[in-house]
């Protein structure tokens, strides 16, 4: 009996009128936890009842404490008939279960009803008394901290990063049970909400157990998702990165030896598997699509089609021995590293990290994006306690990812994520990440399987090391064009780099970045079961190919050479597939300048056609020039000699041809005419291609004063002010069903996304200059001919005038950097604070800088801006601008942001994870303002409930906020609609930097820490 939960119901306010006769309500409250229920007295005739109840005490196992939500139901007492429910509040008590988080939950919670929405508020106090548990075989994992943030949380430091944890639980969806045919919609929705709450509690507990087993104490980058598989059930799955975190309370004397890799890393490299050609997992008798690796940094797995329950080679059965084999391998690898200082070994199947930003020194090299997809047919989950099939599916995909990473010479995958898209009984499972080489020092227990690494050098150059290729240049996994790094000139780099992670803090970037999207639709015939799955898996490789082509073209058009935060979403619908890729393009100083885009016509004899082509070419060239100016991309010219001799590799040019490229001679010719520079050739051989080129040029840049990116921060902007605005925007469009073609679809989809962005820029125009950060698009196809796009992002203002100056100052500082690894600043602000305060150094360097920047021969590093310096708290000037605290409002302000930080503020405490699931349904759609009115109100209510929970935990912000699901269904003819929303984030307490400063003047010792700019990067 290790825990006592105590609940007190204080009061209610703004209750709805439940008794028409008196215009009042006789309210009372039921408090339920597990199977125990308490009731308050009935408070007669009031819309603002004061119950002031006693403490209701529940004596429960900590296992239940983790799984069960506290359920509070407000009812209207009725003497003669059944009591009417007013609404409910679910409170996740998990944050009370670990010592460093919240100690009490106390505040006003909106009373929520799935039919009526929010109906008043209730004031509740919740406490937990935990007893020490001496049971070694316990099933609970109280005390393991969970973070949605995909980097090491700000007030912690990572002692060990243990690695990947995953778990899934399945259940039958109450919505599809027979009983629901006779239950009311409200009862059905509540059953669903409760079940999902219970399942996520259970999932979190199980993940926690795995973490404890690995001797970790926290999960970072925790991502939990629901798969609503319809009649086949409900899957809740989660992935995360197990870590051992230390609270940063004092300046710990911990220095990661990131620049001196251990000797043991220099093992002989394993022989690469032959890396050209087909790389798909053939573990099914029926696999259809064949394809090959397309271009560099982007291994596309050919989807493997598996029909569960059919054929002999189903994955579920193969999974077992396969895993066993893997474990053996891992074990072997671990044994080789006998000299390493770790004390405990745990086999690890997948060396994956869900992190997108890393402690300094951890990330050594980045190979490129690895992704895998697979099409599955859903069938009923027969035994919810043994979700083997789903486990096997994911294991198989992860295996594929792992082998792709291996092919890229990498032993780990970072920025890893998984997703699904379901339509009827077909499900596409997707996983993607960035192949990388990590410094094993942080991963004591060694995820280094086989130690493929050979490239870690002593004294890695700062700011470009991660760009250096991890694979063997003589045995490259795909055709790539290598040059010597433009930064250090010592190592080879690819000409283009794609990744799913955030821009490393020390990366040297030229100019600003921008959001780049590839959008694509493909029609598909309606089909059933196997035929449908086959059709989809046939289409997938083509979609991946086209998405990649579009990304590459758009990147070139922007004059940039690297993508960060790449996220490719493939959505399946009844009669089409949609692909949406978003990423942030940047110009990495270490990578070569991208060549232009060359257009080649097929019929050179036609004069007017030629003219047309040349016109098109001119437009493209103009656009590139304009973009370079817009994003301030002006890298210094580097003469060929400096770069060194060309690499002995037959293919020097990166060529990406359209699918039918018979005329290779012509291409070569064109390439030569373009000089030594690399040109990207687009062959226009049909109207289709023409259309593509047109669509390239239709992307409109954001209006002046606006920037956008889908990563945490925008390269090149470093003086955020404290104003932030998080928002969600949803659009659903109906396609006219008449003769839809791929082209028309593409155009529509493109228009939809572009218009959505334009609307955002217009709405937020009062915030300029500002940047939309962490722009997250989600596409779904709820019905035939309906496309739903959901966008969540945060707009952050910045100070334009200061941007210029501080950019220069920071650039200067980059030059001044001595051997000291600046990255260490991030974790050890105290030691370096005098060095990193920009203000005193600034006036002295300003003049020099201006003269320097006018000199065209300035080295790259000087012009460049390091992102590390683009810290949102960087300069002292903006403190003056922070708004005075709001007075007189009775409701505390709670900020929400998808980022892991709050500009101009320091996060002082993490209060626990927020993970909420809501269903809203209406049978009076028209009366509630139609679909828009319905969803608008619902999303506003969801925000309100998140804010209320955070406030009750004692917090004032949610960071790493994400709306993971927004499933909207309508039936206008019946005047009905339903929506499911799942959101999560980390509740935190932050302190304004200006307030901190006031405090620190009294405590000079703390002063350094608070004003150090390095604190809140990533």
């Amino acid at each position, binding site marked *: 009996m290790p825990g006592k939960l105590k609940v007190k119901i204080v009061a209610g*306010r*703004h209750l709805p009128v439940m008794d028409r006769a008196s215009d009042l309500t006789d309210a009372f409250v039921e408090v339920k936890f597990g199977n125990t229920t308490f009731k308050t007295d009935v408070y007669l005739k009031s819309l603002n009842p004061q119950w002031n109840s006693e403490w209701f005490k529940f004596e429960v196992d900590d296992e239940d404490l983790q799984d069960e939500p506290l359920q509070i139901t407000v009812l209207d007492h009725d003497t003669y008939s059944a009591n009417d429910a007013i609404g409910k509040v679910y409170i996740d008590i998990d944050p009370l279960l670990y010592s460093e988080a919240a100690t009490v939950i106390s505040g*006003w919670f*909106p009373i929520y009803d799935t039919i009526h929405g*929010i109906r008043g*508020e209730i004031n509740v106090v919740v406490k937990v008394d935990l007893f020490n548990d001496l049971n070694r075989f316990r099933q609970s994992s109280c005390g393991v901290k969970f973070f949605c943030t995909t980097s090491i949380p700000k007030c912690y430091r990572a002692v060990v990063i243990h690695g990947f944890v995953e778990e899934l639980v399945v259940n039958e969806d109450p919505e599809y049970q027979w009983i629901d045919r006779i239950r009311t919609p409200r009862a059905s929705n509540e059953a669903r909400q409760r079940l999902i709450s219970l399942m996520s509690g259970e999932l979190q507990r199980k993940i926690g157990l795995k973490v404890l087993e690995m001797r970790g104490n926290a999960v970072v980058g925790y991502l939990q998702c629901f798969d609503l598989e319809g009649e086949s059930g409900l899957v809740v799955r989660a992935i995360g990165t197990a870590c051992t975190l230390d609270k940063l309370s004092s300046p710990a004397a911990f220095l990661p030896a990131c620049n001196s890799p251990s000797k043991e890393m220099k093992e002989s490299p394993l022989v690469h598997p032959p890396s050209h050609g087909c790389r798909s997992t053939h573990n099914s008798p029926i696999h259809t699509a064949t394809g090959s690796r397309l271009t560099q940094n982007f291994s596309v797995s050919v989807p493997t089609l598996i029909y569960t329950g059919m054929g002999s080679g189903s994955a579920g059965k193969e999974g077992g021995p396969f895993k066993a084999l893997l474990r053996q391998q891992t074990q072997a690898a671990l044994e080789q590293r006998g000299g390493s200082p770790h004390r405990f070994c745990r086999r690890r199947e997948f060396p994956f990290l869900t992190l997108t930003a890393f402690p300094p020194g951890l990330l050594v090299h980045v190979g490129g994006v690895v992704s895998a997809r697979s099409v599955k047919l859903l069938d009923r989950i027969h035994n919810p306690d043994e979700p083997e099939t789903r486990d096997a599916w994911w294991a198989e995909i992860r295996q594929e990812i792992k082998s792709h990473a291996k092919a890229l010479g990498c032993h780990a995958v970072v920025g890893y994520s998984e997703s699904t898209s379901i339509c009827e009984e077909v499900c596409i499972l997707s996983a993607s990440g960035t192949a990388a080489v990590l410094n094993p020092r942080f991963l004591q227990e060694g995820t280094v399987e086989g130690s493929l690494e050979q490239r870690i050098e002593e004294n890695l150059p700062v700011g470009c090391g991660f760009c250096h290729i991890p694979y063997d240049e003589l045995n490259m996994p795909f055709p790539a064009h290598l040059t010597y790094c433009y930064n250090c000139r010592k190592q080879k780099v690819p000409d283009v780099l794609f990744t799913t992670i955030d821009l490393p803090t020390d990366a040297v970037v030229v100019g600003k970045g921008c959001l780049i999207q590839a959008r694509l639709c493909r029609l598909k015939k309606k089909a059933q079961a196997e035929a449908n799955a086959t059709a989809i898996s046939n289409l997938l490789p083509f979609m991946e190919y086209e998405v990649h082509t579009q990304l590459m073209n758009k990147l070139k058009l922007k004059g940039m050479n690297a993508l960060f935060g790449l996220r490719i979403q493939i959505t399946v619908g009844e009669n089409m597939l949609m692909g949406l890729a978003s990423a942030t393009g940047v110009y990495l100083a270490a990578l070569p300048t991208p060549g232009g885009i060359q257009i080649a016509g097929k019929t050179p004899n036609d004069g007017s056609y030629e003219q047309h082509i040349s016109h098109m070419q001119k437009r493209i060239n103009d656009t590139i020039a304009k973009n370079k100016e817009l994003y301030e991309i002006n890298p210094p010219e580097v003469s060929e000699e400096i770069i060194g001799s060309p690499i002995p590799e037959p293919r020097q040019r990166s060529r990406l041809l359209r699918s039918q490229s018979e005329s290779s001679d012509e291409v070569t010719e064109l390439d030569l005419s373009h000089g030594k520079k690399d040109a990207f050739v687009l062959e226009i051989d049909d109207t289709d291609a023409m259309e593509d080129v047109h669509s390239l040029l239709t992307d409109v840049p954001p*209006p002046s004063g606006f920037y956008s990116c889908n990563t945490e921060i925008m390269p090149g902007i470093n003086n955020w002010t404290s104003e932030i*605005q*998080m*928002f*969600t*925007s*949803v*659009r*659903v*469009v*109906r*396609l*006219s069903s008449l003769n839809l073609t791929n082209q028309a679809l593409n155009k*529509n989809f493109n*228009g*939809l996304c572009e*218009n959505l962005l*334009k*609307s*955002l*820029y*217009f*709405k937020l*125009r009062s915030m300029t200059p500002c940047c939309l950060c962490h722009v997250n698009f989600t596409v779904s196809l709820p019905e035939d001919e*309906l496309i*739903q796009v959901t966008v969540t992002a945060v707009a952050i203002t910045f100070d334009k005038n200061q941007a210029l100056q501080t950019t220069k100052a920071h650039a200067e500082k980059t030059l001044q950097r001595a051997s000291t690894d600046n990255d260490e600043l991030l974790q050890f602000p105290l030691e370096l604070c005098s060095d990193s305060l920009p203000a005193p150094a600034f006036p002295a360097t300003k003049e020099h800088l201006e003269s320097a920047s006018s000199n065209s021969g300035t080295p790259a590093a000087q012009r460049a801006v390091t992102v590390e310096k683009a810290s949102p708290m960087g300069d002292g000037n903006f403190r003056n601008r922070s708004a005075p605290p*709001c*007075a*007189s*409002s*009775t*409701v505390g*302000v*709670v*900020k*929400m942001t998808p980022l892991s930080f709050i500009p101009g503020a320091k996060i002082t405490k993490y209060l626990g994870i927020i993970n909420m699931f809501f269903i809203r349904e209406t049978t009076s759609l028209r009366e509630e*303002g139609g*679909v*828009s*009115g319905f*969803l*608008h*109100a619902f*999303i*506003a*209510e969801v*925000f*309100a409930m998140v*804010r*209320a929970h955070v406030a009750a935990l004692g917090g004032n912000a949610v960071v790493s906020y994400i709306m993971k699901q927004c499933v*909207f269904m*309508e039936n206008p003819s019946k005047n009905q609609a339903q929506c499911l929303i799942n959101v999560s984030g980390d509740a935190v307490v932050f302190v304004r930097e200006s307030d901190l400063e006031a405090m620190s003047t009294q405590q000079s010792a703390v002063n350094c820490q608070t004003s150090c700019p390095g604190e809140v990067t990533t």
Partner: protein
Amino acid sequence: MTSELDIFVGNTTLIDEDVYRLWLDGYSVNDAVALRVRSGILEQTGATAGVLQSDTMDHYRTFHMLERLLHAPPKLLHQLIFQIPPSRQALLIERYYTFDEAFVREVLGKKLSKGTKKDLDDISAKTGITLKSCRRQFDNFKRVFKVVEEMRGSLVDNIQQHFLLSDRLARDYAAIVFFANNRFETGKKKLQYLSFGDFAFCAELMIQNWTLGAVGEAPTDPDSQMDDMDVDLDKEFLQDLKELKVLVADKDLLDLHKSLVCAALRGKLGVFSEMETNFKNLSRGLVNVAAKLTHNKDVRDLFVDLVEKFVEPCRSDHWTLNDVRLFLNQYSASVHSLDGFRHQTLWDRYMGTLRGCLLRLYHD
């Protein structure tokens, strides 16, 4: 491709002041979009008409959802659904309760009932204010009236407390409530030259001096007079006003009063001879107004009477405002020298307010 659903929800609720104004003015979404296009916003921002339409719809939806809360402004402060900075909350409330001069002049003094609400069509047609806006303004008047009518204590304070209005706007509402409660006639043709400000000024004086609350003491019998400290005129006072009749009924007193005033003003007044000939008529008018106030019907006609009996005669003789001021001052003060007159305090309470009102009402 048609848009089925299109929404934008910010963690901090976005409020566009211009769109709010259009919404308050009762324009439909399409009219509002057209007006915004005309304002040149498309050129300034480079947005398209579609973007503007979507933006306007979003704001209208937000305002529609906020409207319920604006009906009871303290709710707006305590609600959790919309996160709005306090300054914006104040702006939303203030603008929502702001009314049009043209509209208030039509409704001032009328009973805030269903019957009046039916006339809103005509008012809308007459004033050019949209029916929707008329309805909002009318409902605001009625709502404020309902909440404060039975409340004790200062009218302005009550309004401020329950509707969180600025001092200025709360005073205006106090006047509206006071006029509606006493049903003063303001719509007659000869009163058309008066502005809402003129009436509000008079209302404030009357609330300060002529209501129960003005006496500054609790009612003698708290059970029978639970309420209406500031909203109703002091009935006892109105009864007493009959006593003033002696000033015109007693011929000696009237002559004495006239001679005192004439003696004091001789040479100072531009219109002395006109005043001298008209004195008895003017005095009779002013005193009779007081004496009649016991009847509800005559209370309603107070302003009509004042204009008929005083303002118009003076105006036709081309008195300047200064003449009026000098006269009224002397007219009130001289009564103190009338030995036979015993109701000096009553006179001051009546004439002090009336003098203020008349001076305000005396213009073209």
